[in-house]
């Protein structure tokens, strides 16, 4: 069974702890006066962040956990405040006294620690990495995030589902289309309607375009981190063209607010031409980079995540598939009918993640060609006034995105989302031992995880 997520909800007289696996969902009711729940992290290690977050959010104590440190609440966050509780309604908080965070570190003679972040040297999101080093060699790394914590889950509570849509579209800019589709699925279920096929295909087309943009950007940056800047110039040019195509199709370079319940015919002439161009360029790129020995010298055997550990930590997306796990939300009849092929690699190193992105771009081009054949205008009527609990899974460019919401009287009662990065960040440290610290940026980039989607 693959572990997906674990989170809490506040009910009238109890807390509910919900644990989602790929095959089933478990619900535990716990006492509100003295909320405590047994850890599952000894069996599913990736559950530990969920449990630490649950403690920060609701004050639920985790029994038997191997880690009781706060996760989202940082050094200056006031103690004993659990903002996801319904009785917490503050709009602003004062800073509390600084309480140092105890980082994981390895002791021993000559072992030293290196702190990186939250502000990094390039144009990237803030996050913290803490290394224990023996000279150049990484012994251990702790990933510490949540600097970008905006409290989105709380922010959308009490909102109308359609009112929350623009916020949800902006949780993680690189995965905006995926987030919008997940939210669409929830709204559609809540209304008890079914989307017309043409609309499904339109949205799927945009999702593949988003994936292409993300992969192209990464293919450039990964090569650049291995000292091969020419590939960055090449791929960033293609990525820019893809962004312009996104704008041409949706009037927005990231497709913000593009997943609507209406679809006008697209300019498929221009789209088809661009796809041909991209396919030809990518073919050329593949042949070019495969022949650069210095690149593969850096890529091969760097940052290995073994299939055993990938599975143990319930990783998803590119990271999981590069380590041989066949997990992809798109493995369903709809996608298979439109040319989806499950892509995996087995080595679990930077090279595997790089090659996987190349293969996925090629497959996305194929799928887009099929999706665009259905170009008729299409609409779907939506109205409010729904209630119930709904979830959605979408394969974003990073991996499996899980979203769930409780809706009551047409308003959001509880919103929870688990970005694929939330799983994969927890597996990042497993790729470090045996590598030197200078390879960290390369390994990190080969996974390209989101901070914004992770921190919420």
């Amino acid at each position, binding site marked *: 069974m693959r572990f997906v997520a674990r989170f809490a909800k506040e009910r009238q007289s109890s807390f509910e702890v919900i644990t989602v696996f790929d095959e089933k969902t478990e619900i535990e009711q716990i006492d509100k006066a003295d909320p405590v729940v047994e850890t599952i992290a000894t069996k599913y290690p990736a559950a530990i962040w969920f449990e630490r977050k649950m403690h920060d959010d609701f004050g639920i104590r985790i029994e038997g956990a191997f880690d009781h440190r706060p996760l989202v609440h940082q050094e200056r966050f006031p103690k004993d405040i659990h*903002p996801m509780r319904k009785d917490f309604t503050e709009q602003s908080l004062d800073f509390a006294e600084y309480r140092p965070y105890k980082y994981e570190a390895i002791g021993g003679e000559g072992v030293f620690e290196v702190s990186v972040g939250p*502000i990094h040297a390039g144009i990237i999101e803030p996050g913290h990495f803490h290394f224990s080093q023996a000279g150049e060699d990484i012994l251990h790394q702790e990933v510490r995030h949540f*600097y970008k*914590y905006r409290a989105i889950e709380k922010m959308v509570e009490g909102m109308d589902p359609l009112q929350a849509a623009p916020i949800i579209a902006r949780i993680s800019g690189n995965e905006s289309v995926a987030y919008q589709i997940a939210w669409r699925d929830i709204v559609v279920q809540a209304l008890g309607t079914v989307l017309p096929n043409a609309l499904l295909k339109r949205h799927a087309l945009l999702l593949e375009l988003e994936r292409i943009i993300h992969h192209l950007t990464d293919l450039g940056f990964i090569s650049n981190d291995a000292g091969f800047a020419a590939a960055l110039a090449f791929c960033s040019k293609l990525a820019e063209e893809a962004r312009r195509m996104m704008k041409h199709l949706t009037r927005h370079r990231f497709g913000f607010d593009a997943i609507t319940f209406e679809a006008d015919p697209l300019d498929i002439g221009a789209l088809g031409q661009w796809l041909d161009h991209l396919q030809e360029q990518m073919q050329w790129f593949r042949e*070019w980079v495969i022949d650069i020995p210095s690149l593969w010298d850096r890529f091969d055997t760097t940052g290995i995540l073994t299939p055993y550990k990938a599975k143990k930590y319930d990783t998803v997306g590119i990271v999981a598939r590069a380590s041989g796990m066949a997990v992809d939300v798109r493995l369903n009849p709809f996608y298979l009918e439109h040319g989806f092929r499950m892509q995996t690699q087995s080595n679990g190193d930077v090279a595997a993640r790089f090659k996987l992105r190349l293969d996925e771009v090629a497959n996305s081009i194929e799928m887009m060609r099929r999706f665009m054949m259905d170009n008729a205008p299409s609409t779907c009527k939506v109205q409010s006034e729904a209630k119930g609990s709904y979830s959605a899974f979408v394969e974003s460019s990073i991996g499996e995105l899980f979203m769930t919401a409780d809706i009551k009287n047409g308003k959001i009662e509880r919103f929870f989302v688990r970005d694929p990065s939330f799983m994969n960040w927890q597996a990042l440290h497993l790729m470090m031992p045996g590598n030197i610290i200078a390879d960290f940026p390369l390994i990190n980039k080969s996974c390209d995880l989101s901070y914004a989607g992770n921190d919420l």
Partner: protein
Amino acid sequence: MIRFWEKRAKTSVVTEHPELETQIDQIRRSIKDEVKRKFAGSLAIRMVDSGSCNACEAECNALSNPYYDLERLGIRFVASPRHADVMLLSGLLTFNMYHHVMDAWAQIPEPKWSVTLGDCPLMNAPFQKSFAIKGPVAEHLPVAHHIPGCPPDPETIMQGLLEFLKKI
């Protein structure tokens, strides 16, 4: 490598559709003049993300792609605030980033300017105020210039930087 140079010769300089090209060219030229006049040819920017969705950063990264190539105008993104003239701030100012942002700002030597990028820092994006957000930024820092958009596209960022340079 031979294959690469063949391709390179064939691709030559990437051209845009004409209106965009002239527009960008104009911006490029005037930015170059202003940078030369006011910053002795080199303007150093430290980009700080205080809680964005990452699209604003993506557009800043796009400034280095061959279509825009910001660096040849003498504008560089630098790794340390101590090397910077300008702090370019994107995203919502979160509770957890507040002190780090202030720290970065304090490290920039005088004279210095802060420029906000995108709708988030001034709380103009669709997000609502929450306990985890300390924004709007202007309540905590002197904001010399603002580049609006969600996100502002690379052209708008170049235009915005130009306006900032004219202003100071």
